């Protein structure tokens, strides 16, 4: 696997990935792009409002999927209401996403220091690190790091001899994708089934864990804070774009020669560079050609060769009909069967639906059944429209999709509408509308032809 940043200047959260022993407290202090545990020391000399101000001024965007600015999220907390809790979302499960696990395994102290900085700024009574259950190694690394940090007086009572005190508790998940949704995560942390809560309130900053104001931030978001405090707002904003400053981690998988997790400047790298550059993907595998790609995890509508020159910038990708989501880019070459790929992604949502909202619980199941029978050769001519109809009940259209210039179709911008509490159900529609809009002929051939047609690249001309 290729990995990390192209140059040391760009290595903000990945600076210890290749360092032997970088996961220990001594390694954390002695290596990397800033001095470990000096940032919390510096933050403690500032007021909590000044630290919050830095996060807001730097525009630290949330790295979990929605891309919402963390500083603004912190501002939704009602003033004077205590306690407040900080919950770090390490339940990374979006298919294709593979960055928080590496951050937790290789640089757990960076995450802990990020938590301390955030807890100080927002006045958290306690921090919970919610780590996905299947990530045994990440849990071991974080547990060991927390034990070291407690022993060193960096976590717990009177941190660094000041009046700042906070406990950080490692919490194990137990296998449920939906728990990545922040209100479901809070339910899970309360010891319940991980089902999203009814909105409003839209943000747990108003009412969250134990109905107290709660900030739920992604692992990568927290991991950026020590670097930010060490180097300042201007340095943070020196790479990336005005709206999306800084770097972010992109997991590139699928049909490229050198898949990997890369730290790239936000907004300035294009998908083409990501796929083709030697220091990133190294080209579509073995001379094959690009058929389609998922730009931001399984929940994102698909992109096609026409979109490769777009930058990895949340707003641009959103306007073009998809999302950058959790930074997971999945590349599919012309050997990929669009129906089979579509079914696999839909099956994921059908399996992971928590069952709370009927349109999702029933709809994702029907989507899977219909796609399975099409793939098995038992499809009916009406199945394509039936699929779109079921999908429309979960997410009333028009559903976000990429432009298809060959067919004269324009992009429908993100996000989708929803008849459900959370975006899981609507996400299941992404592969369906993406695949049918572009590869309807592959679906039709599986339904009507005796011999299936060869799988092929995206046609330049529309087949609508």
């Amino acid at each position, binding site marked *: *696997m290729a990995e990390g940043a192209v140059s040391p200047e760009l290595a903000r959260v990945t600076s210890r990935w290749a360092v032997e022993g970088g996961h220990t407290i001594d390694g954390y202090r002695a290596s990397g792009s800033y001095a470990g545990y000096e940032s919390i020391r510096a933050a403690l000399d500032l007021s*909590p409002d000044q630290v919050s101000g830095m996060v807001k001024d730097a525009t630290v965007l949330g790295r979990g999927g929605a891309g919402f600015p963390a500083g603004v999220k912190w501002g939704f907390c009602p003033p*004077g209401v*205590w*306690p407040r809790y900080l919950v770090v979302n390490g339940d990374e*499960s979006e*298919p*294709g996403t*593979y960055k928080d*696990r590496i951050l937790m395994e290789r640089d757990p102290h960076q995450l802990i220091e990020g938590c301390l900085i955030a807890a100080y700024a927002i*006045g*958290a*009574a*306690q921090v919970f690190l919610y780590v*996905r*259950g*299947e990530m*045994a*190694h990440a*849990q*071991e690394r974080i*547990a060991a790091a927390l*034990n070291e940090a*407690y022993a060193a007086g960096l976590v*717990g*009572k009177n941190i660094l001899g*000041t*009046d*700042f*005190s906070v*406990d950080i508790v490692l*919490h*194990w998940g*137990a*296998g*449920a*994708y939906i728990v990545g949704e922040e209100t479901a995560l809070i339910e*899970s*942390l*309360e*010891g*319940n*089934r*991980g089902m999203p809560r009814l909105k409003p309130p839209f943000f747990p900053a108003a009412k969250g864990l*134990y109905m107290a104001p709660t900030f739920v931030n992604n692992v990568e978001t927290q991991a950026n804070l020590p670097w930010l405090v060490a180097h300042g707002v201007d340095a943070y904003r020196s790479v990336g774009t005005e709206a999306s400053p800084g770097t972010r981690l992109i*997991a590139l*998988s*699928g*049909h490229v020669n050198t898949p*990997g997790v890369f730290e790239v400047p936000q907004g300035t790298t294009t998908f083409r560079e990501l796929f083709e550059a030697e220091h990133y993907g190294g080209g579509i595998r073995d001379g094959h050609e690009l058929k389609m790609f*998922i730009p931001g995890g*399984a929940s994102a509508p698909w992109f096609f060769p026409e979109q490769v020159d777009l930058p990895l910038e949340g707003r641009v990708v959103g306007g073009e009909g998809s999302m950058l989501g959790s930074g*997971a880019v*999945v590349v599919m070459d012309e050997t990929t069967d669009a129906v089979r*790929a579509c079914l*696999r*992604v839909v099956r*994921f949502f059908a*399996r*992971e639906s928590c069952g709370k909202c009927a349109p999702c619980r029933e709809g994702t199941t029907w989507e899977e059944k219909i796609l399975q029978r099409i793939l098995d050769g038992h499809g009916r001519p009406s199945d394509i429209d039936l699929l779109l109809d079921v999908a429309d009940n979960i997410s009333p259209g028009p559903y976000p999709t990429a432009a298809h210039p060959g067919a004269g179709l324009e992009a429908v911008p993100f996000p989708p509408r929803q008849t459900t509490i959370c975006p899981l159900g609507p996400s299941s529609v992404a592969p369906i509308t993406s695949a049918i809009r572009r590869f309807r002929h592959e679906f039709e051939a599986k339904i009507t032809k005796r011999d299936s047609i060869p799988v092929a690249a995206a046609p330049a001309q529309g087949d609508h």
Partner: protein
Amino acid sequence: MARLTPANEQLARSIVARYPVPKSATIPLCHLAQEQDGHLTDDAMAHIAELVGCTAAEVLGTASFYEMFKRHETGTYCVNVCTNISCQLLGGEELLEHAERTLGVRAGGTTADGMFTLEDVECIAACTEAPALQVNYRYFHRISTEDFDQLVDDLRSGRLSDEVPPHGTLGKVRQEIPADKVANITPPEEQTEPVWIARHRQAAEGGAS
């Protein structure tokens, strides 16, 4: 069918003490019980209910939501083959088929000797290492059919017993919070404005007046 052993009950109480509200410890305690017995038994759930202050039905209600809790006996090794999109693109489904043939069970089944339970799982966050699988939540990357057969041999012969603990053992390292280092774990209703926040607020108010 077993309740938690005295040693594990003590450990369980220390885990409960880490949460402002005891019921939050439900999932960690289910993991502890599964580590003890290999799966989650009814007696253990009843014991957990006593420890976190709810009913056994509520513990079951929570546990049954989560994929990792097994309420029946599993093999010593849970072999979880990922077939989600990134792995599918590079042969995850074919790897699962091969695993089914090699082990002689369908996904979800356990071999007659009680050694292996095979599962078809969702994304395990090793997408750049496809096709990937986990054995008792330990990773194995870029697995060919030959690699798979070798892995099965190694597990059967015990050559991997250091790297792969029996099913149920999650982290070999546990978090421990020394009693004298605990900052402030009390129920939410007993919490007030943190001292450092109050100090800065008072300083700002003092400066303003």
